[in-house]
């Protein structure tokens, strides 16, 4: 029987993968993909808690919000990446340190 | 006519200032227009000066043409203008010399707008000094004179103009500071507090206080006169200043010093005046001889005339110090006469400088052949300078010496020897410049022109006329002077 614990483990694995990608990948697109993974793991958590604990629709609403938000975020982030590429001729995150104090 | 009668002094003083304002509104390119505007306004002042001369009542020692309005009530400061026999001749002289100087400035070719507006401000300041009867107002005008002069020397002057201008400015400012202190002391010691020069004469200050104030004022005035050893700013300022400014400097500004003594020190501090009169006579004698001897050693004609001014102002001091009618009148008359004579001398120097572009006496020679009219007018001015009878300086100098000899035998006797030195340097200079064979380098110098004659002839006429008939100016001052003597020596 698949229970709440399985969902939480899946989401934790997904989150760790995303976090790992975010922390290690140099390519900004891969970095973005890591963020998407982390967002989706959060979405899985919402659905799972909604299904097993509260039995209402709030979790679903949040998950839908996250999906829309992730799409918007991806669009903006890609636009930023394009702009950075345009200006700096690179999308490697550790090269982009113009905010260094 | 009523307006002129009631406000003659305000008009004569501030018309030039209005002129300065008008000039500032004119476009700087229209140089001719600016010059004519300046001439127009100073001519208006001159006309009022003549009117004042005409209307001046010679039979009273009272203040005339009075204008008395409150200015800063809290400190009892008034806009108080008026003239008496001491200031009236000076006002007339100032308006005359200012007008002639504007005409003599026609050759100014750079910064015309600035020059003429500053000049007119200067004229306002000078006339104000002679008209003001409120010490505060007097001081304001005194300082107003200072700053245009600084720029006129410092911008339109010769090669060492900055040095000369700063020297002039600092010297006189030093004097002004002492004067300011003296003025404030008088204000706070008087009861009720007042700046009114006439009311101050009625105050009875203690002797010690009088002497301290006299000294402070005296240094301020001595720098203006200038009295040896405060005199070295004068030759430098003259050498660097443009011709017309030299005329004003020697013709009017020096007189502000002795005028201050007559107007402020003498009536307000009578005891100190008596106490100081002997040192004053000695200083006068030193001035006469020092100036004459130094003049003899000069190569530059302007420096020579500057030192001759120092010598001639010594005569004024000597006459003033005597506290006798002859000496005091002679001193004031000498101020007037020296104004005319020295103005002529500087204008004449300017004439030759414009042609030969230097003033080195030794490098001329035989100019009397080339420029006979110029030589003739110069000889008139030189002879007036050395006190030839028949010319105005003689009468004033003789009066000063006669007056002083009564009181200070030996000092005056020694001072008289200055007469020989004066004759010495003037005639020697004349010989080196005009006599002897013509220096061929100058065989094409043009004769003096109409505009220059226009400035010189009125002065020459005054020099001769007052030499023969001095009363028109002398009788302006005698009664006031008599009053002043009574005030000093009751």
């Amino acid at each position, binding site marked *: 029987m698949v229970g709440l614990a399985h969902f939480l483990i899946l989401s934790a694995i997904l989150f760790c993968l995303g*976090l790992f990608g*975010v*922390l*290690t990948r140099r390519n900004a697109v891969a*970095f973005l993909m890591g963020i998407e993974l982390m967002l989706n793991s959060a979405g899985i958590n919402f659905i799972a808690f909604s299904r097993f604990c509260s039995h209402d629709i709030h979790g679903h609403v949040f998950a839908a919000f996250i999906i829309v938000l992730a799409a918007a975020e991806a669009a903006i982030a890609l636009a930023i990446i394009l702009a950075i590429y345009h200006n700096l001729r690179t999308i490697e*995150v*550790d090269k*982009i*340190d*113009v*905010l*260094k*104090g | 006519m009523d307006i002129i009668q009631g406000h003659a002094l305000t008009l004569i003083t501030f018309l030039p200032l209005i002129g300065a304002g008008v000039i500032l509104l004119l476009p700087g390119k229209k140089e001719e227009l600016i010059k004519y505007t300046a001439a127009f306004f100073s001519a208006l002042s001159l006309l009022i000066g003549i009117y004042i001369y005409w209307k001046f009542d010679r039979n009273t020692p009272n203040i005339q043409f009075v204008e008395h309005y409150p200015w800063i009530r809290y400190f009892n400061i008034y806009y108080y203008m008026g003239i008496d026999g001491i200031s009236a001749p000076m006002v007339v002289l100032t308006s005359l010399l200012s007008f002639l100087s504007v005409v003599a400035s026609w050759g100014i070719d750079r910064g015309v707008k600035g020059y003429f507006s500053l000049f007119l401000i200067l004229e306002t300041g000078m006339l104000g000094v002679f008209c003001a009867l409120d010490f505060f107002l007097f001081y304001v005008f005194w300082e107003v004179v200072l700053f245009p002069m600084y720029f006129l020397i410092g911008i339109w002057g010769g090669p060492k103009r900055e040095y000369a201008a700063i*020297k002039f400015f*600092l*010297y006189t400012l030093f004097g002004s500071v002492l004067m300011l202190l003296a003025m404030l002391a008088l204000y706070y010691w008087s009861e009720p507090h007042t700046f009114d020069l006439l009311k101050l004469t009625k105050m009875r200050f203690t002797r010690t206080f009088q002497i301290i104030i006299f000294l402070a004022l005296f240094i301020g005035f001595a720098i203006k006169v200038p009295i040896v*050893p405060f*005199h*070295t700013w004068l030759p430098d300022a003259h050498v660097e200043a443009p011709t017309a400014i030299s005329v004003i400097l020697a013709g009017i500004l020096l007189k502000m010093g002795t005028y201050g003594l007559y107007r402020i020190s003498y009536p307000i501090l009578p005891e100190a005046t008596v106490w100081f009169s002997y040192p004053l006579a000695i200083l006068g004698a030193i001035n006469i001889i*020092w100036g004459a*001897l*130094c003049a*003899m*050693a*000069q190569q530059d004609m302007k420096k020579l005339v500057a030192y001759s001014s120092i010598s001639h102002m010594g005569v004024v001091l000597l006459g003033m110090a005597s506290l006798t*009618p*002859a000496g005091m*009148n002679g001193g004031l008359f000498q101020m007037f006469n020296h104004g005319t004579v020295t103005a002529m001398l500087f204008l004449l120097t300017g004439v030759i400088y414009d042609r030969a572009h230097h003033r080195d006496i030794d490098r001329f020679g*035989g100019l*009397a052949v080339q420029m006979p009219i110029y030589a003739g007018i110069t000889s008139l001015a030189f*002879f007036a300078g050395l006190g*030839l*009878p*028949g010319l105005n300086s*003689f*009468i004033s100098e*003789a*009066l000063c*010496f*006669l007056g002083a*000899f*009564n009181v200070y035998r030996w000092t005056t*006797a020694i001072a*008289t020897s200055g*007469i*020989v030195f004066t*004759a*010495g340097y003037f*005639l020697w200079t004349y*010989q080196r410049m005009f*006599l*002897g*064979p013509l220096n061929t380098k100058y065989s094409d110098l043009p004769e003096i022109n109409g505009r220059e004659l226009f400035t010189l002839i009125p002065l020459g006429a005054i020099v001769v006329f007052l030499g023969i*008939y*001095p*009363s028109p100016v*002398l009788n302006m001052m*005698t*009664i006031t002077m*008599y009053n002043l003597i009574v005030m000093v020596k009751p």
Partner: protein
Amino acid sequence: MVNLTIPILILPLLAFTIQIFFGKRIPRQGDWISNSAIFMSLFLSIYIFYGMWSKHDPLYKESIVFDWIVMGGFRIRPGIILDNLTAVMLIVVCVVSSLVHLYSIGYMHGDKRYSRFFAFLSLFSFSMLGLVLSDNLFCLYIFWELVGLSSYLLIGFWFERPAAADACKKAFITTRIGDIGMFMGIMLIFSKTGLLRYEEVFEAVKSGELSGFYLTLAGVLLFMGAVGKSAQMPLHVWLPDAMEGPTPVSALIHAATMVAAGVYMVGRLYPLFTPHSLITIAYIGGITAFVAATIGIVQNDIKRVLAYSTISQLGYMMLALGVGGWLAGLFHLTTHAFFKALLFLGSGSVIHAVHTNDIQEMGGLRKKMPVTFYTFLAGTMAISGVPFFSGYYSKDAIIASVITFVQENPSHLPLAILGVGAAGITAFYMFRLVYVTFTGEPRNHERYHHAHESPSVMTVPLVLLAILSVISGWGGWFESFMGSPEGVHHVSSHNNHESAHNLAVILSVTISAIGIVLSTLTYRTRHIKAEDMAERFHSLYRLLYNKYYFDEIYYALIIKPVLWITRLLRSIDLVIIDGIVDGSARLTVIVSRIERWIDDNIVDGAVNATADSIINMGRVPNRMQTGILQNYLLAAFAGVLIILLWRII
């Protein structure tokens, strides 16, 4: 009658004014204006003189007074005085002046400043007449200076010549030294009495208000003016140099009138002089008479010889006045004016003919210029004191006064020796002048060849003056006309005078004769060789030839030190006074620089140090901001972990 003196005075002034402004535009350059003015003055003077003569009252006096400078109690009221002395002086001045005007038409013909010459002559005439007519000390001084001015202008008339330019300056300044004394004398009198008019001052002297030391001092100071103007020792040096002026000027100003002004002044102010000041005057006059005469022996410039003779004769007049010979001195002034003007105009005529002043270049001119010669000879006889010529009478009177004085005061014997000696020397050198110039063989043939008699406009004045030189001493007119006016107390008593007079006649005639004979022997018949004498008394000759080195001594003792002092004072101004001024300015600049250093380093240092330390503190956290996103995320993750762990534990 005194009203007539006003036009006498004004006419020349008018002529001067017209001439100086319009002279060049008037036909004949206006010489007729000046001439007619002075001749009108002359006729008026003669009329006045005639009027005075017919009154024949030695004490007659008229005056006019004007208000000029009035200042309360102090007033100067000039006026005109007309008495016998004035009348005589008017005649002297106008006669000589008008004849010189006339003569100048010929002498100055063709000069490029012809009109100006006449203008200056008119100015001089005006000043001299004013001097004579003044009735107070102040106006006397004014005209005194004005004649000095005209003298300056006329000596320097040919100013292109450096010598003339030097001479006019020298004349003016030298006389001014004397004038200072005179001015001080006037001031002294004025300060003691408050009076300036002669009469009032004389009253004050009489009443004893002015007396004793101060009166003597005032007298000596006034006499200083006369020393300058009348070229007495030691201020005589200007007069020989003044010969650089045109000759008519020398005749008018430097022989007949202006230089006599000093004598006139002493005579006019005679009551002011105490015995002490008079004896000073006598000695200065005597020494001048003698010394100048000795210099005259060896000079070769015709005008300079005459100049020294003028100095000598003026000294003579002073000597006379000093010993109490008031009449004698003024009488000599009158006769001298005529014959000395004659001599100068004669020399001018010669110079006009031969174009040189050097008598060694002349010789034998008698035949070429007879009129000049005979008139010149008349003048020479007059000055030498040949009997029946005017100079004889006046000189005789002077020697008589001197002898009288010496008889009364034997200790003053040197005065007599000086006076008599000078008379002999005068006769000697004047005849030398005549012989060398007019007789013998011409020494420069070219000049001799061109020589000619002068035009009649020049010879007529010569003849007229020659006549006056002869007759002006005749008949004792002067003594009877002048009398001895009030206040002249010093003239010696009459008894002595008679005997002295006889002695004087003998002495003066003898001494003049000796002089003339010696001169004839030396320069005419050449029994005595002048060159030999010069050789034998070599050092004396050098001394005389160089005029006792007066000019050199003055240069070394006065002019050089004065110039040195002027330079010293100038350096004091430039170095010490300006040094102090500039130094204080520099000190201010230095102080301000130090202040700036303090501001920059100490005050600003503290402020900057505070700021710097804050910046340094900021550097530490600054390193944490790498700009690399992943570092921030790692830190955020680590933070979350730490919080979690902390919650768990």
